[in-house]
């Protein structure tokens, strides 16, 4: 298989905690190039903490994190900027800059890292917005004027502004109705294929997991208790994983079908 054996993100024995409470207890994880990895876990299990530690918003107590082959503890300021340019983040509630229009939001990373003409920036930004399903009329709106689904799309466009290699999604389909959620899944898969992205997705959504995730990792009690493709997860011996994937009344995870959504 073309997939390289060098993971784009390597996490080894990560320990993260606040005061005396340990949230992540020796977590190890790999993210391979070109795949969509879904991270699941109960509420409060530390999924967001793991995501935020990898992207550098939280300090770790111990362990190794390597992004694109670079140990984050040993990166110089320049290297860090370069790595950050190659990562894009979609926050759970969008986190769009409220005083800028949608278009200006998407252009914000471009303005910071690239020196190109306003014309070119407008051109590329509008193209990105189009790719995520927003039109020029939406581009002139302010974040407070957008619906939930539009906010997520705009935020995704901003995460993809610089055509990053890795995209981090924090519960991208939360708060969306089933149809919008399904559309968003399809959007992520399409963009991932067209732009050659690697996607790290924190999610609760079983249908997203079934439809678009190549691999899944389950986080419980501060550790990764299972990881692998969906079939591996369903067959896992861990009680939490079993319960998660077979539902309360033995309902199965929906089969792979992009048009079906719970």
């Amino acid at each position, binding site marked *: 298989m073309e997939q390289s054996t060098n993971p784009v993100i390597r996490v080894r024995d990560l320990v993260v905690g606040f005061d005396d409470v340990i949230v992540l207890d020796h977590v190890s994880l790999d993210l391979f190039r070109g795949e969509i990895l879904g991270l699941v876990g109960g509420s409060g299990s530390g999924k967001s903490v793991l995501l935020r530690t990898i992207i550098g918003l939280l300090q770790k107590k111990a362990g190794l994190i390597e992004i694109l082959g670079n140990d984050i503890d040993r990166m110089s300021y320049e290297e860090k900027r370069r790595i950050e*340019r190659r990562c894009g983040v979609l926050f759970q*509630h969008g986190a769009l800059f*409220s005083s800028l229009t949608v278009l200006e939001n998407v252009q914000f990373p471009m303005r910071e890292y690239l020196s190109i003409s306003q014309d070119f920036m407008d051109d590329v930004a509008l193209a990105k917005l189009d790719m995520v399903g927003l039109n020029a009329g939406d581009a002139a709106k302010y974040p407070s004027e957008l619906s939930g689904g539009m906010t997520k799309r705009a935020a995704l466009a901003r995460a993809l502004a610089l055509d990053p290699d890795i995209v981090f999604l924090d519960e991208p389909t939360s708060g969306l109705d089933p149809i919008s959620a399904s559309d968003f899944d399809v959007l992520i898969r399409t963009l991932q294929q067209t732009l050659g992205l690697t996607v790290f997705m924190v999610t609760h959504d079983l249908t997203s997991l079934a439809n678009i995730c190549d691999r899944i990792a389950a986080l419980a009690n501060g550790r990764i208790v299972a990881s692998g493709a969906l079939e591996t997860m369903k067959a896992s011996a861990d009680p939490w994983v079993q319960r998660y994937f077979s539902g309360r009344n033995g309902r199965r995870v929906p089969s792979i079908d992009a048009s079906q959504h719970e």
Partner: protein
Amino acid sequence: MRRGPALQSELLRSIKNNSEIKLKARGAWTADNARELDEIAQDITGMRSAEIDATGITALDTFGARTLDRLVCSSIKPRNVALLGLPQRYVDLFNLVSQAAADDPHEPTESGRRLSAGISLLKQKIARMGIGFMDFLAMLGEIGNAAFRVSLNPQSFRLTSAVNQLDRVGWQAIPIILLITFLIGCIIAQQGFFHFRKFGADEYVVDMVGILILREIGVLIVAIMVAGRSGSAYTAELGSMKMREEIDALRTMGLDPVEILVLPRVVALIIALPMLDFLGSMAALYGSGLTAWLYGHMSPEIFIARLKDAISITHFKVGIIKAPFMALAIGAVACAEGFAVKGSAESLGRQTTSSVVKSIFFVIVLDGLFAIFFASIGM
């Protein structure tokens, strides 16, 4: 069994049958009758044995179910209170609610615990004050760091943002600053004339007014106004950005929020405050002069002549030198408090209040320190 006066209520009747107590429950045991249910549960405790006939209950919700459960569990010996005849459709709810109580019993707080709670609250407050001061020092450090980085690369300074902030903090503040300092000048002069007149020391009012305004009042009043007006605005802006994760988004894009958001604001304050101080002092002197003329019957020519004698450039310098330092304190506190906002609206309000209070406090402390400093160097 303790019996309260409200026992013979609509919802619960007691029928004495030989030595056994039978309670008949009827009516709607729902939230609408919550007060009565509360009284029932409080009044009836420690039953030895009883039967509760629930066939008359016409409606039951969680309030009613909890009350029934409390009645059942209140017997001295467990299981000596029987619940009979609960309509089938309410049995599930009752079971669910009594199970919940068994899993997680609710302990009402005793008054003995309040003292220790009060002491630990005090400890927490003191710890928070200490942390707050550390945050302020940390913010000063980060501002210095960002300023240093920008000085190495002047292109990266957010000039547009700084000018925008300067407009908001400086230019737009002028009318209110002028008005307030004018009034303060009038008040000081009026009080001066009123009291000095007794000693026939009218003329010395001018000295007092001139020195006081230029050295202290001008800067202090303006700094307090700016802290209330702009410090709170900074805290609220940065706080709501923090709540919406916009600060995190900036950080994940590899940008330093201090450089982008804090530095332009602080620079704007440092530029604006001395200017506002100057304008404020002039307005205050004008106000005093007007008061001297209209109230103190001192003609403008005499006022100005005395003023020239009384004040020197030193007094002016003393006032103006304090301004940038106060601006830095206000800016650092406002931005530190903004970043400390947690996710709720209440937290935003609390940090904004704290920001204004702390920055005014620092401004006054700085004023005191400068007073000592200038006195010791003889300025």
